[in-house]
């Protein structure tokens, strides 16, 4: 292991890490947007059909492996003429599955807000939408933070799968470097450490969020 090789490995892993972070942030944002929107609709809508449709989406995406779904989006849509780039498919795929997971998290969070809170809101004459926005949502979000943190950590780990659809993130680059240098244990070991660092940072970020929002 000479210096030049080590530099190449570090370069490959770090540039991969940037893509990992991009995909993670993109998918997280998409998942939160989908999940929060669906959870709000689910909480306020009174039509049983709405809840059913949301349920179908959630069950479908939660019972299918991420890798299979990524393949479906990347290769499957291409056959229909919709050729997504690796990054787009990665963010869309992980984001859509994440949306289903985040929906369940928010739904549980909103249901965990004590019933007396919504009763008091109704008693002062707030309409259901306003009561949700001012009383249920803020408290539900706080309750949802710990499981959201778990999801975010899992998401960072799942980005390793997008190597399989040729996104140049950590594992993709790592595989290429191993093919050139044959320093298998070193490279994958370093990749493991990199992921440990990333997941630790994400985990701590959520702990900080939780602490800041404490009342």
């Amino acid at each position, binding site marked *: 292991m000479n210096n030049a090789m080590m530099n190449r490995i570090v370069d490959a892993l770090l540039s991969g890490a940037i893509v990992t972070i991009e995909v993670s942030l993109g998918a997280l944002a998409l998942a939160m947007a989908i999940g929060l929107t669906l959870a709000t609709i689910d909480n306020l809508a009174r039509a049983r059909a709405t809840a059913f449709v949301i349920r179908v989406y959630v069950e479908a995406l939660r019972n299918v492996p991420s890798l299979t779904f990524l393949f479906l989006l990347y290769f499957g849509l291409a056959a229909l003429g919709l050729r997504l780039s690796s990054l787009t498919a990665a963010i869309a795929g992980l984001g859509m599955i994440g949306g289903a997971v985040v929906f369940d998290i928010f739904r549980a969070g909103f249901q965990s807000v004590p019933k007396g809170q919504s009763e008091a809101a109704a008693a002062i004459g707030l309409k259901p939408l306003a009561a949700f926005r001012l009383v249920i949502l803020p408290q539900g979000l706080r309750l949802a933070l710990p499981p959201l943190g778990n999801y975010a950590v899992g998401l960072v780990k799942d980005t390793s799968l997008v190597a399989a659809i040729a996104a140049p993130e950590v*594992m993709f680059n790592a595989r290429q470097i191993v093919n050139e240098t044959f320093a298998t244990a070193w490279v994958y070991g370093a990749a493991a450490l990199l992921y440990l660092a990333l997941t630790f940072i994400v985990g701590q970020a959520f702990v900080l969020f939780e602490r800041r929002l404490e009342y």
Partner: protein
Amino acid sequence: MQFLETILANLADWAPRLSEALVTSLALTCAGFSLALVFGLSIEYFRNRSAASIRLIANVYVAVARGVPILVILYLIYFGLPASGIVVSAFAAGTIGLALVYGAYLSEVFRAGLGVIPRGQREAALAAGLTPAQTFRLVMLPQAIRHMLAPLLVNLISLLKDSSICALIAVPELTLTSRAIMSESFLPLHVFALTACLYFAMAWPASLAVRLVERRLARGPTRWRQPDAEANLLVQSI
């Protein structure tokens, strides 16, 4: 619909390969989960030993298993170990890798399952003269199992889905096989949609079962009802 027709037309060719692959996926899942149970129980056991160094190793293991993607661990086992002379088959690497990671998750389930039982339960048993082993077997474990059933099942479903990652170390399971079929047939949408349905058919009933278990748990224990007055009198007369 044209979509379904295409699938049906190819079914004769795809079905045998996909069924074999599905069996491999299930085998991976079962082997991985069984091994994970062993790892998980061991870790939880070691985490309660008094020696600080043993506890540290166990905790480090759990932290690493929870912070590193399964793919990296699979690569390390399948591609990294041979350099040290240890060569394992892809299936074995997949099983061990999945078990190492899920062992850590399961140890958390065991810890939570036992931790949720009120302390007084154990104290009452010991005070009545039961040995620690009897206490564990007759008082703690039965109660813990009720709480652990749902989380264990959730992890099993998750492991089934993660078994797809083993495709990336060439285990001939469902996802890899469907990818191969895609390359031959140029029908990615059909193949992967079919594969997704197959996973769904396995995972969804299991997640319904989880919800059933959780609901029955919420209803409370029906076997451990308060003894009625008559039984109380009988006990007092002895």
